Structures are given as structure tokens and as C-alpha cells.
């Protein structure tokens, strides 16, 4: 039994009659080139100026980064060297690398920041409906959470490959977010 209908057969017949390839019309390209040419000219005219601006920005950014790096190097080595001389410590600490978190944590932090901002806004709106003692408890706990986040984050910046630290930082964020969420769900006057 054939599954084809008469309309399928007709379609097959028509498609079989079509050419395998269709070459583009020969006179299209000049028109396209004519359309592109003025833009290329504009680009050529403006590009040196943009290059200068870009170069200026690059220099400024590099300068800032280098200054920051140098400052940190100085703080790390110079400051420690003075202490080392005074205390006769066996060896000065190694210079600290510039602050940098692993890429996946940078992305995660943005997400945490968005959640925290949203929850803070909700909590602020509800603040007057909660008992002052409750607000005090929540704020005290949030300060503890923030302090732990800052400490873990700072340590991770110095040791970005440390997985234990990364996990601890993530857990600290999650506990803070969970606390904020719970605070926003408290019943009024409690």
C-alpha cells in the first residue's frame, strides 16, 4: 500500500523538474559594491580618530592597573620589609598578586548581588512592619554574614585556585541570601 497521495506525486514531479543549482544574477555585485563603498570611506575617515581614543583609553586603563599593581607590590614588600627589619622576621612575605576571583565566581557574585539587592529592597519596604528586636537580630546576623563574606573573598583573591575557599565563599553568600529571604517572609509585627 502506497502512503503517497496524488498531491505528493504532483509535488515530486514539479521538484524533479527544477534545476539542481541556480547561479546568482551577474549584475547584482556592482550594485552591492556601490552600496558598500561610501560606508568604507566613512570608516576609513573616522578610524584614526577612534584609534586615538581607544589608545588613550588603553593607556589610561593600563596605567591605572599598573599603578594599582605597583601600590599593592609596595604595600606587600615595602611595608613588610620594614616590619621584617624591625622584628627580624626570617623572610618577608611574598608580594601579593592583584585581586582577582575565578571567572565562575565573578559571574556567581553578580547573581548573588542581584538577589541580595532585590531582597534588601523588599526588607526595607517591610522594615516598619517588623518588631524592632527582630530587625536588630536580622541586621546583626547580616553583619556577621557580610564580615565572613568579606574575609573569605579577600582570601580567595589572594588564592584564586583554592577550591575550599571558593566553596566557603559560596556557602556564606547562600546563608546570607537565605537569611534575607526568611526575613522578608516574616509575619507583620513579629
Amino acid at each position: 500500500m502506497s502512503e503517497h497521495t496524488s498531491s505528493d506525486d504532483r509535488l515530486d514531479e514539479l521538484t524533479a523538474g527544477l534545476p539542481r543549482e541556480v547561479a546568482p544574477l551577474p549584475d547584482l555585485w556592482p550594485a552591492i559594491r556601490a552600496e558598500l563603498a561610501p560606508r568604507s570611506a566613512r570608516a576609513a575617515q573616522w578610524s584614526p580618530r577612534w584609534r586615538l581614543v581607544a589608545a588613550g583609553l588603553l593607556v589610561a586603563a593600563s596605567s591605572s592597573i599598573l599603578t594599582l599593581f605597583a601600590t599593592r607590590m609596595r604595600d606587600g614588600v615595602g611595608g613588610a620589609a620594614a616590619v621584617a627589619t624591625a622584628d627580624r622576621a626570617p623572610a618577608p612575605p611574598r608580594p601579593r598578586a592583584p585581586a582577582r576571583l575565578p571567572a565562575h565566581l565573578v559571574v556567581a557574585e553578580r547573581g548573588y548581588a542581584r538577589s541580595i539587592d532585590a531582597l534588601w529592597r523588599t526588607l526595607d519596604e517591610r522594615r516598619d512592619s517588623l518588631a524592632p528586636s527582630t530587625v536588630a537580630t536580622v541586621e546583626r546576623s547580616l553583619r556577621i554574614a557580610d564580615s565572613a563574606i568579606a574575609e573569605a573573598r579577600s582570601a580567595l583573591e589572594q588564592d584564586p585556585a583554592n577550591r575550599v575557599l571558593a566553596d566557603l565563599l559560596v556557602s556564606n553568600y547562600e546563608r546570607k541570601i537565605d537569611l534575607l529571604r526568611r526575613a522578608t517572609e516574616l509575619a507583620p509585627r513579629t
Partner: protein
Amino acid sequence: MARAVAVAATVTALAAPLHAQRKVHAAHATTSDVSVRLFASVGTVQVIGWDKDSVVISGAVPKGSQVALGNPGLGATRGLKLFVESPTEEAGRAGTLTMRVPRGARVWLKTGSADVAVSEVTGGVDVNIVGGSIVVRGSPRELRAESMDGAVTVDGTPSWMRLKTATGDITLRGGEDVGAATISGTIEARGGQAERVKLESTTGDIRFALGLARGAAVEMETHSGAIDVQLSRKTPMDIDAATVTGAIENAWSKARPTVGSEGRGMTFTSQTGGIGGRVVLRSFKGKITLRGT
């Protein structure tokens, strides 16, 4: 004359209780797995599981409270929403409620600062308070208990349990799937057995002395609290402990923890085949102590 009336009024006011109360009572025929939601801003709430397919709630609440304890229907109901709101938080502290529910009920309870006691419920329990305390006796199938500065105590071994506080202490004695988290409260787990456990704190101490089921998975994590773990020496298990700056003391075996490569932080691992379970301990600067029994 006016002065005499004023004095009499004052005496009458002082003679009356600070917050006058009124009694409340309601009873409902229900299914054995009824879902009950109770919001009650009172000082004490008791929830007791019993063998009857009915919910009975009674107690005394401050005068002026808004009370909605439902209207009895014709048949057994599958869900109830009950509500008691005191005129002020202070007045509410004097109020008490006792609610009896079928053992297999699912109970959702939210209060402010209250002492909540739940017993003999084998269904689901979800309790949320700010201050006061939560005590759960028995082993609900599912238990969720959250508080801000109230303590949470679970005297039972629920199949699934999640306990959370901000500053309140948490005490538990095991279960199949256990999670407990606090910011600055302590977590104490002892007296029972566990299969899957995750305990975490920011600054609070964690003390663990539960027996482990075969193949158990235990995780403990803190930022600056101390972690004190007591484990059986007879059961072979894998232990993986690490701190960033804190110390590790091992009195569970003869192996010594290793100091971190930069002279700070420590690690301790023990690979024994792990049939007894796996224990992972993480701390930023809190001390980890391993003890044996």
C-alpha cells in the same frame, strides 16, 4: 466625688489581669492526612498528634484578638486554615493554644515570638517563629523548622529535616536526611544515627556525635566556629577535613594533619574504603577536632 470615682476606676483596672483573655475552642472532622495551616500570634502553641480523624483547637487568647478557627463542615475536611491575631505583640505573649491533629496530618504553623511544642505527629511539620523556641518530639516524615533567635530542638529522627536559625541554637539527634544551618547559633547533633547530614554555620560551633548508617554522607562547614566531631573508631570511613587558617586536631586516629603549603591552614584525610561512610569537614578559621569512641 470625682476623685473617689477615679480612685475606684484605678483600683478596678489594677485588679483586672494585665491582658484579659477569652477562651477559644473549635473542632473539625478531617481526613487522616489533613493539611492544617495555623497562624497564631500567641505565646505558647502545642501541637499534639492523636489517633482521631479530627482537629481540635482550644486555648485562651487576649481579648480583642481576631480569631478565625473555621466552621465545621458536613464531611471530613482535607484542609483547614486557622488564624489568631492578638491586638498587640505584648498581649499575644499571654495567649496559649493547644491543637490536636491526626498523627498523619501536615501541619504548617507560623507565629512571632512563641514557644512551640510539637509531638507525636508523623506526617509533615513546618514551623516558623522569630523568637521563643521550637521543640519537636517524635519523628515526622518531613520537618522544616525555622527561627531567627529562637532555639530549635528535635527529639526524634525525622526522615527529612531542615532546620534554620539566625542566632538560635539547634539541637538534633539524627535522621535519614538532615540539614541544619545557622549564622551564629550552635549546632549540636548527638544521641542517634544519621545517613545524610549537612550542618553549616557562619560563626556558631558545631558538635557532632551521631552514629553513622552504612554508607553515610556527612558534611560540616563553618566560617569561624569550632567543629567538634566524634566518630566510632570501629567503623572504617573516609574523612576529608580542610581549613584555610584554622587548626585541625586528630584524636580519632594516629595520622597527623598536614599544614598547608604556605604555612597556614591544615588538611587531614583518611581513606579506608569508606564503607562506613564519608565525612567532609570545611572551615575557614574555626578549629576542627576529631575524636574517637
